[in-house]
């Protein structure tokens, strides 16, 4: 944290009578420290924030300290058992409220999780300080205590002893209110609304003085006001009162007082201050604002983290290229192979009329070859992703994440790799198919035209406005199913999906309760506090995420479980409707070892019929990269005359034996490859070459001339 300028106190005596009156009333509301809080237009938020803050405290491990520091949210340990059995020695209880008994001078602690005995109190109970063996201060309380010192004093953060502590909730109110004032920007740059009572009382160091207050009077200036309020709400052992009501009343009282002096206070304080004082306070305000400005807005935070992530991703990619090139090349090879197999099976516009019969022939065998190629592709991809995730872990991409966040992040990254594979496979297949038609331009134009049509043509934006009522609602459905985009996709989504269904329902359920994660205001407040603590950006985010997820998990567990059960039921209904048959479903089924048919391929014969694929997270099979291509021994016996090459060459008058001899002529086949009439394909059904069949359904004249020359040289 940057060094801050020394404060220049404002003497109390410089205030006008009106100013003093206002300060007095502020003190009445918040004690001396409260007078440091500037009046604000959003005073109602003070009470609300106090309520929120008090409801979100979490116990932590016991750590013995002095009793004066015990605060709501802390965990206390009982030193003895009560004679009536309501509390037990060594048991830990969560403190809901701390009171100073004015008569006995002893602290009393309301605990909320006290008592399990039948007939005993269930809501709250008091333990006296004599009953307390120790306590653990909650992390949240510690953060707030540190924060208020910084905000109020404009000095470096101090420890909790510097806060006027009496353990009363009033302290929390002051703390939160101070944060609200500063964060709300109530303080003006000219300092007109900034007066520090602590500063006005002494020219010395405010922190020291506050500490002295604490030493001299356990109640302190804060404690005076809040203890008074506390007296009115407390302190019947085992009583029926609720502290929530008491706190609300106290908060309302503070709010009313502050609201009442809002206008006059502003004017009075402005009048009371000299220009020098204003300048001094302006410097303090500027310093505070500068400190707050160091806290980035959330979007900036996200962008900064995104930049860090990008760097780490690049580092991982570099490492992959340097050390795992084999896996990358294997994946590319399998992808290209898959594209060829897929193109063999599929048809495309332009092929349909002229080469349709040809492409229909031998579809079953092409389909089998495609299946093998799919599995080889996914095996290669699995190896690649496994290595990639490892590299990303090595460069620290996931190092700041908790278990749940880590799962989501790795899943997202793996999901993204699968998406990329899917898109790459589709595009590679399309390219292969286009390379086999006479005029690929017409296909490109057709794809562009249909894409334009699906987007709504030039008036793209209006489609959305039309919505699902378009055409279908008029009684004339162009497609027979209403507007294709809106209706079709909506129907798909309505069905829900397995994982997404669960997540969505959980989110909905949690949003409907008060047990969801931290509010944006809470997050902002917490971040401001943590920023001052000197935590790194990444640490802040990690802690915030942990708190947000943790709270939702803990407090919403019951609803979480119920929602999950319901979601799983829905998912089960929907899951049965999925059909396999394309790259994603079939290949991934094989990856997940769910698809029995995936083991049927000729190259996947693991034991027990299971696919011989590496499991996620397993060490890649050392021999996997040497996995042969899904080679299929040429089997001429099952090929009809109309099949591919044979069809073509039979039309040219050659017998099957002659065709086999021609295929064995590598010079001939290489020449055909060079002409674009054939392509090398070790897995091809015939002779290790595939045919690039033109849309006309016939080889080019050049290819036929080449074949005839080769045949003539063989005496055919």
């Amino acid at each position: 944290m940057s060094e801050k300028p020394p404060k220049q106190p404002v003497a109390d005596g410089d205030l006008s009578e009106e100013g003093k009156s206002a300060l007095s009333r502020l003190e009445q509301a918040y004690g001396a420290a409260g007078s440091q809080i500037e009046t604000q237009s959003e005073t109602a938020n003070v009470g609300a924030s106090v309520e929120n803050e008090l409801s979100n405290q979490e116990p932590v491990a016991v750590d013995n300290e002095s009793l004066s520091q015990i605060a709501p949210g802390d965990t206390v340990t009982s030193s003895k058992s009560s004679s009536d059995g309501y509390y037990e020695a060594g048991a830990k209880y969560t403190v809901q409220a701390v009171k100073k008994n004015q008569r006995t001078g002893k602290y009393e602690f309301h605990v909320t999780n006290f008592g399990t005995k039948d007939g005993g109190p269930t809501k709250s109970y008091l333990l006296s300080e004599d009953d307390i063996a120790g306590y653990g201060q909650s992390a949240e309380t510690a953060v707030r205590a540190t924060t208020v010192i910084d905000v109020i004093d404009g000095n470096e953060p101090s420890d909790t002893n510097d806060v006027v502590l009496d353990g009363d909730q009033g302290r929390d109110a002051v703390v939160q209110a101070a944060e609200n004032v500063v964060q709300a920007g109530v303080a003006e740059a000219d300092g007109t609304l900034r007066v520090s009572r602590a500063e006005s009382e002494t020219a010395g160091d405010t922190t020291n003085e506050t500490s002295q207050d604490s030493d001299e009077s356990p109640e302190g200036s804060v404690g005076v006001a809040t203890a008074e309020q506390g007296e009115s709400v407390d302190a019947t052992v085992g009583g029926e009162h609720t502290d929530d009501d008491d706190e609300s009343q106290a908060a309302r009282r503070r709010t009313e007082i502050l609201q009442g002096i809002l206008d006059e206070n502003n004017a009075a304080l402005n009048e009371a201050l000299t220009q020098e004082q204003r300048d001094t306070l302006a410097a303090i305000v500027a310093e505070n604002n500068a400190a707050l400005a160091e806290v980035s807005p959330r979007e900036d935070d996200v962008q900064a983290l995104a930049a860090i992530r990008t760097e780490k991703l690049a580092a991982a990619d570099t490492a992959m290229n340097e050390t795992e090139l084999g896996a990358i090349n294997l994946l590319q090879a399998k992808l290209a192979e898959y594209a060829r197999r897929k193109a063999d099976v599929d048809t495309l516009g332009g092929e349909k009329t002229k080469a349709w019969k040809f492409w229909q022939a031998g579809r079953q065998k092409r389909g089998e070859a495609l299946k093998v190629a799919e599995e080889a592709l996914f095996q290669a991809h699995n190896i690649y992703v496994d290595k990639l995730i490892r590299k990303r872990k090595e460069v620290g991409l996931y190092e700041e994440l908790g278990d749940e966040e880590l799962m989501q992040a790795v899943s997202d990254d793996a999901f993204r790799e699968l998406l990329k594979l899917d898109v790459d496979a589709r595009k590679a297949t399309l390219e292969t198919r286009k390379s086999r038609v006479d005029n690929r331009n017409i296909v490109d134009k057709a794809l562009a035209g249909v894409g334009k049509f699906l987007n709504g043509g030039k008036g793209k934006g209006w489609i959305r406005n039309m919505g699902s009522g378009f055409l279908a609602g008029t009684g004339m459905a162009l497609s027979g199913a209403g507007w294709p985009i809106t209706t079709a996709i909506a129907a798909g989504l309505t069905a829900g999906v397995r994982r997404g269904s669960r997540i969505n329902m959980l989110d909905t359920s949690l949003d409907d309760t008060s047990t969801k994660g931290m509010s944006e205001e809470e997050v902002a407040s917490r971040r401001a506090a943590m920023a001052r603590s000197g935590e790194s950006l990444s640490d802040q985010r990690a802690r915030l995420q942990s708190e947000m997820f943790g709270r939702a998990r803990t407090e919403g567990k019951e609803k979480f479980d119920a929602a999950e059960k319901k979601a799983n039921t829905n998912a089960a209904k929907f899951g049965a409707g999925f059909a396999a048959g394309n790259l994603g479903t079939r290949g991934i089924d094989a990856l997940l070892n769910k698809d029995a048919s995936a083991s049927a391929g000729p190259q996947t014969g693991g034991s027990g019929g299971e696919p011989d694929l590496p499991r996620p997270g397993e060490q890649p099979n050392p021999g996997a990269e040497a996995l042969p291509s899904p080679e299929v021994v040429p089997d001429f016996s099952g090929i009809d005359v109309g099949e591919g090459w044979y069809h073509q060459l039979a039309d040219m008058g050659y017998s099957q034996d002659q065709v086999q001899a021609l295929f064995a002529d590598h010079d001939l086949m290489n020449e055909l490859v060079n002409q674009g009439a054939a392509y090398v394909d070790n897995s091809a059904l015939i002779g290790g070459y595939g045919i690039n069949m033109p849309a006309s359904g016939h080889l080019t004249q050049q290819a036929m001339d080449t074949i005839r020359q080769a045949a003539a040289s063989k005496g055919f």
Partner: protein
Amino acid sequence: MFQIDDEFLTSVGYNVASLSEAQKQQYIDEFTAEANERISERLVSELDDQQIEEFNEIQESPERAKNWLNEFHAGYHDKEEYKQILEGTGSEDDAATFYAAALWMNDAVPKYGELIQEELDNYLAQLVKMREAADAIASN
């Protein structure tokens, strides 16, 4: 009304709350483009050369589109759906082009909406499967 939006991202397993706006928009754009391309390929695969040429002509030429409408859908100006399109586009050329393309597609590929539905169902199912695979990887 369907949109590829936060709900869609949630459906395919993203924790939307943890994504930045830029990330969300990137993903939405990518899913939209991919869905569109898949459907385009599927529709084009149903057409032959002559059909492709005619469809492109209609798409590229408002005059050609109007002529086609007049020839096969005379009186289209009075159709309520055409009026809606016209209102949405604000341009007679754009409206006629789109309207002709839609009607033409319906003639060439009957029930093409169902075909699109099927393609999108497959895509969404595939995404879910992918997420399952990704989850499996993450859990190891």
